[in-house]
């Protein structure tokens, strides 16, 4: 109960500063922000994805991904958030809808990314 209250307070504190100001990226800290904190901050995601299709045949592609839809002066975008196995944000990026323009991601200082993440 105390933790939930703390999360709500955290969300109330962060929301005006970051998300409501149009920069939810600033409120999400890879390596620290958890699923519960993200839910408290932004609500339920628009879409959840898990790409793994062959179990441990494809390590590194099993990351659970949450997406939030948003819109700013540049147009519609998705907040793309990937979690590690313990439910902490590993990567977050603000990706413009459609098109193929790349977006720089904030990532946790993971020990081995090896360029194979999804």
């Amino acid at each position, binding site marked *: 109960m105390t933790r939930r209250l703390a999360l709500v307070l955290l969300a109330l504190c962060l929301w005006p500063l970051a998300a409501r100001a149009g920069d939810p990226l600033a409120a999400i800290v890879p390596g620290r922000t958890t699923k519960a904190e993200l839910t408290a901050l932004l609500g*339920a995601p*628009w*879409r*959840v*994805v*898990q*790409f*793994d*299709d*062959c*179990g*441990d*045949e*494809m390590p590194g*592609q*099993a990351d*659970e*991904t949450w*997406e939030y839809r948003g819109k700013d002066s540049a147009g*519609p975008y*998705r907040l*793309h958030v*990937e979690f590690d196995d313990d439910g902490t944000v590993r*990567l977050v*990026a603000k*990706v*413009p*809808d*459609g*098109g*193929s*323009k*790349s*977006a*720089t*991601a*904030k*990532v946790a200082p993971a020990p081995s*990314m*090896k*360029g*194979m*993440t*999804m």
Partner: protein
Amino acid sequence: MQGLGIFLALALAAALPAQAQSQARAPAYPPDGPAIPAVANSEDASGAFGQEFKAPPPPKPWDRESIWNMKVEGFDDNQGRPIYQPLVVHQGSREILYLGNLGGNLLNPLTGKTEANGTSIIDVTDVAHPKFLHHIPGPSGPVAAAGAQMVRVCGGDVLPRGEKGKWYLLRAAGNVGPDEAQQVWDVTDPTAPSLLTTIVSGLSNTHKNWWECDTGIAYLVAGSASDGWHQSGSKQHLKIYDLSDPKNPVYIRDFGLVGQEPSADVATAQPCAKAPGPNCYEGNMNPPSGIHGPISTGVTANRVYMPYGVGANGVIQIVDRKKLLEGCKHPGASPDCAKSPTQADLLYPQVSFIAMNRENGGHSAVPVLGVPMPEQQSHYADGTPQKKNLLVVASEETANNCMGQQPHEAWILDITDEAAPWPIASLNVPPMPGDFCEKGARFGAHAVTEAIYPPYYGRIVGVSWFNGGARIWDIRDPKNPLPIAYYIQAPNANTIASCATIDGVSKCRNAAQNDYVEFDDRGYIYAADRSGTGVTILSLTGDAAKAVGK
């Protein structure tokens, strides 16, 4: 004797009236029946060299659709769910598209609820106006255990003990987790499916099943932590059931490669090629990699083709279907042959296997039987027109941005001499032009078209190539396959970004990924997207249409 069944099947097909063969909707070909379409030679002795070869045009920029010798006929966004496998069924008077989806969840606008990704059902009778009918949710619980990637459908009129007029759907419920299952649903009314039975649950892994509709035999890709079987990579082997009465599944046996059996001593096992003996393993990996998705040619051709390894340490195995199904009743079978077979029990139905190199795995192994060799219509062998039995094999690319792996491609194997399968050609898409390795997501082979549509059979084959799109080859000269069509979908507002860290910089980019390309019984082609971009319905045009006699 080994190829006798196959040639009987081909003879049977050749004996069918031409009109019957052209009735693509007749449910006679695998998985609906045992007939194999006859393939007529349509090239002169120069084969592909006699064709006016046109190189594939370079694709357009990444944010635009690229299409060659194909036409977009229709599209459905699949509610934004990422697709693994499409299957089109001529169901009564309608054409129904079933989509197995990857794990995740999303709002279903039809119900107003967020549903775990499962099986989508879309009426594609009018391809220009697909109608999303229903979504059967996947299993609830952790997203990692979710999805329902595979789907097969049989009619009650064809199943030996099915209820006339009914339609049944077989699916894997969940992918990797502690309690995955295989289920049968009643989809007679595709707008209101109902769960009929759970065949087996408590599984740790599932994948791509095969279901013979005319016999009811189902080859389920599955495994459980407690079954004692040994597999590297995907922890799955075969569990074979009789689903001729889909309400009452009857277990037949488990099956896999030598070295996967529960009694194998993995710690001391040696390669069978070097140290044949009671404790050895087939292929290059100890224990051998898990199976991906078998294909049976049914009772007449009497073969099951089994690819192991997905994207690494692959083995392609050819199995005698009758011996596989009846082997545990054989006088020489061990007492616990079904659940815990001995090495001898596993070898009994094996016709042969070919080990791939370590950088490739067996994702697809699709037989194409009786294909004329245009340059061998005279002079060779006894001077009579020569045909070959082929196996189209693909190894799955499993990494983003081409990183950390060798390229994954597809090959045509000559399996006419079943004891010694041999590759005779490769199906390849180069990363340039198109700069596919920089495009984001995966670039490489994935899956081979499986549906038998007689005008296409033995003439063209499709392979999904992730961000390289849906690719079609002319295989009328099997030793010299020609690329003749492609479709590369543009990213849209639903496309899931793919992220990669290269040289310390992490970037995300929207990139559509063709996960599967498949035919229907009207000749339409379905390009299903893994990144949530939807399913596109296509037809062939230009030289691709000419290759199939249009």
